């Protein structure tokens, strides 16, 4: 009796799964599908590029971080405007291995473009290259991947501008070139992220012009607030002459500011870095932080989808010098980098004007 029931149960589960799997269409979900756009054949494999909907998958370093969520907002805006089918998903723990699995899955599901912000270029490169080999367009945004793993990168600002601005702002906070002296430290994201590493390269270059400042340590935080908080506390403990801390990830900056505030060192240890204005409003209002540097993340997401659409439709090809990016107008393309433009500096005076 027991044996038969067990087998029946197992057969039932298998039948249900096979039935569900049989109902799936590799191109688009058939359940609850939206009505096809007028004049377009959604399910056709053979169809003019203008008729078929472009399917884009967008992968952040870590899903749930406000910086990336604001990029997603811009991306959804562009997707709606262009009629692009957008999937925004990523590992909630920032694990590049999970991200690689997701890229492989999207390749199998036949997406047209995969836009990646790689947390670890080396781990994601094989999956990205495999996707390209299968004919999927791969672009990166926010952080770059290995050179031959993507066609274009949508860059917020030049790493040169970002690195130099970070150092110049800190020097200003510390009282200007003459007065600035002491130990300084950086709390970064993950040690493998290409964007932070590029910025730090330029920061180190710029620091040469301020011999009074000594960069004592670079600590990772892996996009985790608690780790960043602890790292800043450790830095204050280890270096009594610490005068400035940079939090160069949108997660490490608010945590570092909080650590300085809780240690009662606001005004003695200056904190600056990159983060969203919403995350930094309390610290700026209290005076723990004087300046916040970033760029318009909503526009970055918007530009990413515009670029993805252009790549899928063959409008953005190697050798291009500009692309039309919807409400952003024309955006420069330098080599294989699509440039968003300028950085923004938020201070007590203007931070209320921004909501992201």
């Amino acid at each position, binding site marked *: *009796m*027991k044996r038969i*029931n*067990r087998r029946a*149960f197992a057969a039932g*589960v*298998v039948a249900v*799964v096979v039935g*569900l*799997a049989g109902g*799936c269409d590799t191109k688009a*979900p058939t*359940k609850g599908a939206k009505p096809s756009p007028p004049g377009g054949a959604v399910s056709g494999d053979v169809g003019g590029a203008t008729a078929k909907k472009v399917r884009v998958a967008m992968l952040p370093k870590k*899903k749930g971080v406000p910086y990336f969520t604001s990029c997603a907002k811009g991306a959804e805006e562009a997707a709606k405007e262009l009629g692009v089918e957008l*999937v925004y*998903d*990523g*590992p*909630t*723990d920032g*694990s*590049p*291995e*999970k991200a*690689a699995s*997701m890229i492989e*899955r999207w390749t199998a*599901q036949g997406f047209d473009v995969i836009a990646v912000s790689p947390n*670890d270029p*080396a*781990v994601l*490169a*094989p999956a990205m290259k495999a996707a390209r080999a299968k004919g999927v367009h791969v672009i990166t945004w926010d952080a770059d991947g290995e050179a031959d793993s993507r066609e274009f990168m949508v860059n917020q600002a030049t790493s040169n501008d970002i690195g130099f601005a970070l150092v110049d702002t800190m020097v200003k906070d510390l009282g200007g070139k003459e007065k600035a002296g002491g130990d300084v430290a950086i709390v970064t994201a993950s040690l493998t992220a290409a964007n932070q590493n590029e910025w730090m390269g330029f920061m180190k270059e710029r620091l040469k012009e301020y011999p009074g400042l000594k960069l004592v340590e670079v600590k990772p935080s892996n996009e985790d607030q608690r780790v960043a908080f602890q790292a800043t506390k450790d830095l204050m403990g280890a270096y009594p002459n610490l005068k400035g801390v940079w939090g160069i990830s949108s997660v490490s900056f608010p945590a570092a500011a909080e650590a300085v505030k809780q240690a009662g060192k606001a005004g003695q240890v200056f904190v600056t870095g990159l983060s969203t204005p919403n995350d930094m409003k309390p610290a700026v209002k209290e005076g723990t932080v004087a300046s916040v540097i970033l760029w318009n993340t909503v526009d970055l997401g918007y530009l990413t989808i515009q670029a993805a659409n252009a790549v899928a439709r063959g409008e953005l090809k190697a050798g291009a010098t500009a692309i039309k990016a919807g409400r952003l107008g024309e955006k420069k393309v330098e080599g294989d980098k699509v440039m968003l433009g300028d950085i923004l500096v938020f201070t007590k005076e203007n931070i209320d004007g921004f909501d992201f």
Partner: protein
Amino acid sequence: MRAVGVNETAARYCGAAVDRMKVLVYTLSGGAAGLAACLFIARRNTAKADVGAGIELEVITACVLGGVSLSGGRGGMAGVMAAVVLLHEVRQFAAWRWQNEVVILFVLGGLLAVSVMASNFFRRRG
């Protein structure tokens, strides 16, 4: 191995080499983990100590679905291998349908709950 799993004390009194069996089982388990790590590195180009954190959910689901008893003493390779394939199919389906990692986790957790309940149900009836 099964005897030790069902009732360790009874097995010991029957003369089975219980301690040796346990050492063997744990050694095999460690060896399998090492092999899995090598395969992972070959695939993912990276080696981190905590990469497997959280994968226990899927492993236990595969075992329970494959007929391994949570209280020990029952199970076999064929069932577990079939369950691994099934689990992969469920995961691919969930990923395609919902495109959201959190929902996939929910589905796999639900499958684990169903498997455990089913195995309890069948055990009582048998």
